């Protein structure tokens, strides 16, 4: 077995027992990135010096016998997390020259637990997109078929982990940006409860929806990393002040007697046939593990996409005002006056999708439109949250597909933004209501593209979600098949 297919606990065992060093493991991954990433473009920046330095420090710690399970394990960070002394671009020309002077809380927590940073992964510009095509650094490809999108906006993180160019990666999710690429790349991706992972140092897209999380090959790997990322951060006022329960502790729980709701709104007649088939098979597997399914009603979910595409752009329109060419980031050449500086720096520094959302958000907040759009959207958001929480009174979890279709070809929907917005229909409700949700590999299309299923739980139900995915992975081998399929393509 080669090092790049090991799980985190297997790597930790190897490190602990001296089978290999963190430095060797890290160099192995760096070599793979060097060799293979031209194909995927999953990294924007690779940080070999930092990686080797951290790996050596990890090896010293391992030698003392005081290492934790994550000590010396390599990780890639989505390029939306600020990393001290390293370019943090958010996939934008606007921040191509931005070297962060500080670490995001999530990054420093993972570094403190001994993880080794391999580099920064590609993403849709400012996390706005679900194909990874809006990156200033070019599109990322899907390791299962490089003609296909990996999903987005955490497409670089998902592709890097799926292509075995990182064992695990951080990611962020505003409307599905962890779960949808995890689904398209055969991975487990979890978006925790809003407030579980600090947003400090995570470049903001839509502050009330953004949440950091993990993409990994298995639920167990995701749980190990998530436990190290979560926790109250005094620097983030929206961070949950009470400690989130450790998810790894629940990984042995039985699913016997657990009830899982299926919203009728998630299984319409025009759902992709492969996706529907995988849904039915997943349901059967979970039933065989003791779970009971029942129908639930989430009527407001049908307005989720429209609601999201008012609130997220509105917040983004303000969050992105700081990129004005004055203090940092891109500045146009030879500005003639202040107006010209603003106009050209922003016109030249932002890509089309970002500009589109700034315009939509600015419009939604404008005098005369605020009530019809922003206020109305907040009302629908409150209603949807109410409905979801009511649904959880009767069920432990809610299940549905992660995305309405498997990955499609690069360029397919570039000229149809609304079609890509609709891709987020199943994932957005969790962001609007702040609940945790997970996507896990649950099957494949005829042509071998992965399909993920999504589970949602009430606030701070991460442990239940990771355990359900873990139990599913103990009973199936889609997560193993995913690795095999990618290795086949790479061979």
């Amino acid at each position, binding site marked *: 077995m080669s090092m790049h297919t090991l799980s985190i606990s297997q790597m930790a065992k190897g490190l602990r027992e001296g089978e290999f060093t963190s430095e060797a493991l890290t160099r192995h991954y760096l070599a793979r990135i060097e060799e293979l990433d031209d194909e995927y473009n999953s990294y924007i920046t690779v940080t070999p010096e930092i990686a080797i330095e951290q790996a050596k420090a990890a090896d010293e710690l391992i030698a003392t016998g005081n290492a934790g399970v994550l000590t010396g394990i390599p990780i890639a960070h989505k390029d939306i*997390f*600020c990393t001290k002394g390293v370019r*943090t671009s*958010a996939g934008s020309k606007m*921040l191509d020259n*931005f070297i*962060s*002077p*500080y670490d*995001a809380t999530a990054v420093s927590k993972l570094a403190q637990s001994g993880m080794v940073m391999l580099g920064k992964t590609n993403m849709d510009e400012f996390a706005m997109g679900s194909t990874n095509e809006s990156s200033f650094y070019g599109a990322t490809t899907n390791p299962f078929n490089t003609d296909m999108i990996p999903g987005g906006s955490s497409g670089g993180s998902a592709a890097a982990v799926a292509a075995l160019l990182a064992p695990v990666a951080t990611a962020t999710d505003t409307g599905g940006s962890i779960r949808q690429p995890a689904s398209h790349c055969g991975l487990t991706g979890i978006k925790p409860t809003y407030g579980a992972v600090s*947003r*400090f*140092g*995570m*470049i*903001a897209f*839509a*502050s*009330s929806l953004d949440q950091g999380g993990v993409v990994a090959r298995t639920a167990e790997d995701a749980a190990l990393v998530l436990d190290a990322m979560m926790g109250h951060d*005094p*620097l*983030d*006022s*929206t961070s949950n002040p009470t400690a989130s329960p450790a998810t790894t502790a629940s990984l042995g729980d039985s699913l016997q007697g657990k009830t899982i709701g299926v919203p009728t709104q998630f299984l319409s007649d025009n759902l992709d046939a492969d996706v529907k088939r995988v849904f039915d098979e997943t349901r059967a597997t979970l039933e065989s593990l003791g779970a009971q399914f029942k129908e639930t009603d989430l009527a407001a979910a049908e307005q989720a996409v429209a609601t999201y595409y008012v609130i997220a752009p*509105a*917040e983004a*329109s*303000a969050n*992105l*005002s*700081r990129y*004005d060419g*004055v*203090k*940092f980031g891109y500045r146009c050449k030879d500005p003639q006056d*202040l107006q010209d500086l*603003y106009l050209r720096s922003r016109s030249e520094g932002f890509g089309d999708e970002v500009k589109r959302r700034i315009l939509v958000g*600015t419009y939604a*907040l*404008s*005098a005369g439109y*605020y009530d019809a759009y*922003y206020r109305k959207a907040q009302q629908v958001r409150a209603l949807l949250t109410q409905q979801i929480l009511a649904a959880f009174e009767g069920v432990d979890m809610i299940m549905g597909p992660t995305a309405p279709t498997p990955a499609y070809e690069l360029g397919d929907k570039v000229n149809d933004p609304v079609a890509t917005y609709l891709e987020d229909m199943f994932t957005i409700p969790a962001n609007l209501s702040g609940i945790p949700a997970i996507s896990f590999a649950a099957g494949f299309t005829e042509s071998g593209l992965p399909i993920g299923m999504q589970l949602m739980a009430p606030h701070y139900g991460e442990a239940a979600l990771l355990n359900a995915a873990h139990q599913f992975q103990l009973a199936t081998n889609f997560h193993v098949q995913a690795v095999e399929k990618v290795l086949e393509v790479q061979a």
Partner: protein
Amino acid sequence: MNWQTVIGLEIHVQLSTNTKIFSGASTQVGEAANVNASAIDLALPGTLPLLNKEAVDKAIKFGLAIGAEVNPVSVFERKNYFYPDLPKGYQTTQLDQPIVGAGSIDVTLPNGSVKTVRIHHAHLEEDAGKSVHEGFGDCSGIDLNRAGTPLIEIVTEPDMRNADEAVAFAKALHGIVTSIGICDGDMSQGSMRFDVNISIRPMGEDKLGTRTETKNLNSFRFMERAIELEVDRQIDLLETGGEVTQETRLYNADQHRSRAMRSKEEANDYRYFPCPDLLPVVVSHEHIEELRKSLPELPAARAERYQSDLGLPSKIAIQIADDTAASQYLDASVSKGADAKLAANWITGEITSRANNEDLSFSEIPFSADWLAELLTALKNGVVSSKIAKEVFEYSWQDNQSPNKVIESRGLKQMSDSGELEAIVDDVIANAEQQVANYIKAPAEKRGKMMGFFVGQIMKATQGKANPKQINQLLAQKLNALCE
């Protein structure tokens, strides 16, 4: 036509916290540009605001001081506009749910009457940085040291009817915010900045006229002059068939002129919405009560006490009570044994004018309250005359030496040895034959006035150190003896 002026104020008060409202950076002024601009103040990507509880407490104290409702839940919003000294591209402020609701302030006007000015609300917000337009060639410099300094913006109802009322209100407000310790009150540094909304209407008319807003006045004097200028401008406009345009104006104090900055049509659409990075500010009843207990004496109560306990006349009582540092000075000197009325006269007279000359506040002057007590005690005990006391004060101030030391070292003590004084009196009488003859000839009722000459001579001979009472006694005794 007779016009009525209607004035409402918006006042930005910088809260005297050590650190900024949303970052841990220092609020210290006068340092090199951008020294106090942290990653949060620079709005670096990924940074988040963290609310300074001290700023919240200070805003609440203001609400309590003016008897306003303190809202148990208030909400920060983003006010969006682009400006180089606004790093985030929005100002974090409050709109629909401000921390302080309606209240009022009673203002004693120069004529002694009391005017109630209603406060519409007061909200918390962050200050912007500064653009520096000189010294950078074609460019402007940006200094973000001030960015994020906590402010409360206080908005009054349009209750004032002339510049005097507006200035009296402004002074009363200054007294309140400084006495409860939420602002240093240093107007020259921009610690309090006044925006004045002015309109006029025909006397007796109910409907308000179109208003203008003159922004950023940072002295009582400028405010008074700017109001008078604007009222005259509006009257001229309306009486010559023109119209007042709703606009923002800037007042230039040096030229005593104002100009339009932007009209209503050019006004920004600020697209306010609740800031998703900050939770609503929730304040418990218990916390509000704790803060209420911690409030010190307010100027109005102090003025009352100065009148009832110290017997000061109302005008002087209010004048001192409105100035927290002056009040502390008075209280301290009285507690050290100074006569209250004398001390009050010295504080509003000698000391204020000396302090104004050097542009110092009462907390900064070199002549301490203890010294004032010492000096007034010496005066009361006849150690110095009131004329010499002023001299002692001047030396004390200049040389930073206590009054008793000054009296001692400069030999300014009044002559108390009556034998020595008697010899001088005799000498003066002996050398003024003509004046003595006139005195003797004069009718008794005119003699009193004629004593002045002899007193002056004796003062001259003693370099002012003689006790005037003693001189009068001795002189009367000696001269009257000659008359018999």
